């Protein structure tokens, strides 16, 4: 069978079911064997206003959405207006025959106007609300996508509404499918998504799902959060699975409480997570320092959205980077990781909990709305739990045998001068900066952890020498992590030698990777360096790769080029170009490729 790679758009008003239709169609396509990448574009309101859903279906794995779409499924006349320009020259526009629409304009633009009496068919077999079913059936028909695949999804989606509703929808789907199939337009439309027999079953998941799976696989059993788009689905997924998996989830009164609860649970010994977006993260900055100072493991995921302030609540941005790297007063160790795609989101979640416990620090995962909400297919087996085995480092539970060095120098003696009565030094000075950690509850290890500066035993002190050593001990953990190879340098995508190198971080992995292909089509040999691990920064690995860069262009989703500045701060490397977007919409591969060409200009080739 021929390679397929088709993008389609469903456009309509909020409240019209654009997103559920899109998800349903994505699911049908995935089950039929396609690789899927779908994104939703919606507004921060419950009803009204234009929304759209873009689905890309291909016979090969795809890592990003891709313009231009070959089909527009217009649930309102407005959506034709809004999307027509961006469609492929030979695209089709499916819309309800009753729309007051200048079909001539569509045709003059070269696109195929396909009016279908969807509303009428829906009314005939049930009610107006079935119009979405008609629309999906029409699209399926035009694409020669097998009807029975749509039927299966319809059955599943409407099952809980009763047999009559199912039947009505099926009738609507069948009639619409048939009618479009026989229409002259269908014959003229050149894009096809036939069934792909023999393909394996795949998961269809968004980035937040992937992250949640990684978290539970890593043993995370405590989640405290306050709802905030686009992070809310993490709390919701965890809560939906709380009882069977034994996860304590707490929808807290605010984000201050959420992170403090997670820190309390982390102190007790749970693997604790706190999910939020930038505004909530702002409220968490003080407590981040508490975790840093008391060496309490905690994982915070900041699913970035369009800022500043309330900004663009349902849209994407990568503009919290420099904030997250430096959030909270004073210097203390932290980890910052920004997964590039769904698989990396899974793995990063697992790594985050290990790092938090091994290094006894807060770990921040930087995701964003694009990664969090984009749906993609993954083969079973792609989420490899065994790739990141659970490691707690120097942590033990009450009752478990003492850790090496736990009793410290002079420890174990009653009233010993250094170790205090319990002979246990929670914050012992160690060469690697990591002190043996006994979870609270052990009769041999009763201790305190203060947010004030403290001595090895955990008592508050302002003594100069202790302060210096304690500060150095804490900060040494970062060097230890780097020396232990915990932090990865950039991942290279594409050829080792290239004329142009894209430099990206976090969710831009997919779009930037796909841009390489487009650049190659333009005759430009390009590769990509992508960073997931941002802090502590594996500077040597970065510099090694950066030395080979001929012309570097940073690709990121923020106004001020935060990653570009970050690279300069950490490595001295100043990228030549910057392709950025800051309107809350995800950069698309074509746009990146064009941007890169513009930045490096005539210089290339």
């Amino acid at each position, binding site marked *: 069978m021929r390679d397929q790679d088709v993008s389609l758009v469903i456009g309509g008003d909020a409240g019209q079911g654009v997103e559920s239709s899109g998800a349903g169609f994505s699911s049908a396509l*995935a*089950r039929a064997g396609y690789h899927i990448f779908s994104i939703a574009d919606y507004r921060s309101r419950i009803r009204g206003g234009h929304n759209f859903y873009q689905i890309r279906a291909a016979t090969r794995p795809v890592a990003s959405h891709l313009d231009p779409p070959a089909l527009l499924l217009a649930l309102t006349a407005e959506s034709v207006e809004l999307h027509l320009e961006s469609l492929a020259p030979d695209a089709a526009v499916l819309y309800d025959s009753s729309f007051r629409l200048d079909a001539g304009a569509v045709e003059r633009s070269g696109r195929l106007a396909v009016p279908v009496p969807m509303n009428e068919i829906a009314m005939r077999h049930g009610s107006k609300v079935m119009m979405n079913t008609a629309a999906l059936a029409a699209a399926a028909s035009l694409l020669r996508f097998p009807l029975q695949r749509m039927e299966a999804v319809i059955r599943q989606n409407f099952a809980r509404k009763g047999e009559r509703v199912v039947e009505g929808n099926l009738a609507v789907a069948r009639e619409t499918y048939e009618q479009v199939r026989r229409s002259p337009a269908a014959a003229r439309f050149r894009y096809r998504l036939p069934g792909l027999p023999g393909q394996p079953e795949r*998961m*269809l*998941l968004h980035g937040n*799902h992937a992250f949640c*799976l990684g978290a*539970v*696989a890593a*043993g995370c*059993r*405590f989640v405290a959060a306050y709802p905030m788009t686009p992070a809310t689905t993490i709390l919701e997924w965890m809560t939906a699975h*709380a*009882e*069977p*998996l*034994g996860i*304590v*989830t*707490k929808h*807290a*009164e605010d984000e*201050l*409480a959420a992170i*403090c*609860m997670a*820190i*309390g*649970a982390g*102190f*007790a*010994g*749970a*693997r*604790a997570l706190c999910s939020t977006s930038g505004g909530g993260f702002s409220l968490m900055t*003080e*407590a981040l320092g508490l975790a840093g100072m*008391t060496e309490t493991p905690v994982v915070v995921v900041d699913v970035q959205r369009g800022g500043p302030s309330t900004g663009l609540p349902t849209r994407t941005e990568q503009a919290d980077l420099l904030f997250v790297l430096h959030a909270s007063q004073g210097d203390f160790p932290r980890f910052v990781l920004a997964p590039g795609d769904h698989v990396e989101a899974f793995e990063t979640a697992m790594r985050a909990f290990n790092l938090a416990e091994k290094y006894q620090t807060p770990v921040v995962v930087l995701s964003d709305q694009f990664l969090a909400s984009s749906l993609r297919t993954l083969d*079973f087996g792609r*989420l490899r*739990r065994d790739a990141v085995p659970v490691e*707690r480092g120097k942590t033990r*539970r*009450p009752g478990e045998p003492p850790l090496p060095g736990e009793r410290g120098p002079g420890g174990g003696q009653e009233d010993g001068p250094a170790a*205090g*009565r*319990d002979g246990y030094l929670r914050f012992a000075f160690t060469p690697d900066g990591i002190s043996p950690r006994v*979870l*609270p*509850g052990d009769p*041999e*290890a*009763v*201790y*305190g*952890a203060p*947010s004030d500066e403290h001595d090895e035993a*955990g*008592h*508050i002190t302002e003594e100069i020498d202790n302060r210096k050593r304690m500060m150095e001990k804490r900060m040494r953990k970062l060097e230890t992590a780097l020396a232990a190879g915990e932090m990865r340098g950039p991942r290279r995508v594409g050829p080792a030698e290239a004329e142009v190198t894209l430099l990206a971080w976090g969710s831009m992995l997919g779009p930037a990777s796909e841009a390489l292909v487009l650049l190659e089509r333009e005759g430009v040999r390009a590769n990509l360096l992508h960073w997931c691990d941002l802090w502590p920064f594996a500077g040597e690995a970065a510099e090694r790769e950066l030395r080979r860069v001929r012309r570097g262009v940073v690709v990121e989703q923020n106004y001020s080029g935060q990653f570009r500045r970050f690279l300069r701060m950490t490595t001295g490397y100043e990228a030549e170009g910057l392709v950025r977007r800051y309107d809350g919409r995800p950069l698309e591969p074509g746009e990146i490729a064009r941007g890169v060409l513009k930045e490096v200009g005539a210089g290339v080739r």
Partner: protein
Amino acid sequence: MSVDQRAGAGRGDGRLPDGRHGPGRGLTARDYMTEQRPTWCPGCGDFGILAALREALLQEGIAPHEAVVVSGIGCGSKLPDYMRVNGFMTLHGRPLPVATGFRLANPAMRVIVVDGDGDAYGIGGNHWLHTCRRNPGLVHLVENNQIYALTKGQYSPTTEQGTRTTTSPEGSIERPVNPIRTALAAGATFVARGFAGEPKELARLIREALHHRGYALLDILQPCITYNKVNTYDWYAERIVRLESEGHDPSDFDAAWARAGEFGERIPVGVFYRTEEVPAYEERVPGLKRGPVVERPLDDLDEAAFEALERELV
């Protein structure tokens, strides 16, 4: 009903499921001591609270490693540093959520919150409000000295109107919080007031609180001899009346509300209100049905269960 009568009386007795707690375990006062010397001003009311807490734990037979004292930031919040017990000295205003998180992760340990009036009713007011209705099994000791002491004498949420402080040189113009009434309105299930000048009596109240099923608020009148020259030991002593000896019935919500209105010539101490009808929050958390989080292995999600999660996504 006295503490000892009620000990062991079912769910509300605060005992661990396995009966690990209880008197007569060979614990001595020395077990709760450290070599750390308090930095409080000599005569500070916090000494009485420290003594009372140690005494209450000893009498209840709760060993130092079986409890965690979570505090905020302020003079009184240094308390865990001065006794042998697990301590978590957190942020100004945030001990309640930290303690809640601890309790939900490890309901087998006793979680005691110690903080100041600034922590509890000022900056931490929102957590307090929601803790009252949430009812987690926490004992909350508020060292209420009606002043911000560690920052050297600004008015606090409980400072009486008209008091001159560095942030109210003409006298404070805010009406003070009534912690008892606010807690009652917010749904607290155990609401009491104690006095740092009577450590024995205070220890008894702390023991009552330790026997409570859910959230127990114990507002403690604590003289600050350095920055609060109004509400002194004598001032309190002259005004204190005992709810118990005045025949107050702590199960009577309306009576509690009425008595909570008194704070002036007469200041009632003792238990205003108590009900064991409301389950502790952790008793109802679905995720805890499989037991305390910290006692389960990290890898208790087996291959089949994980695959089932993946399959939900097909």
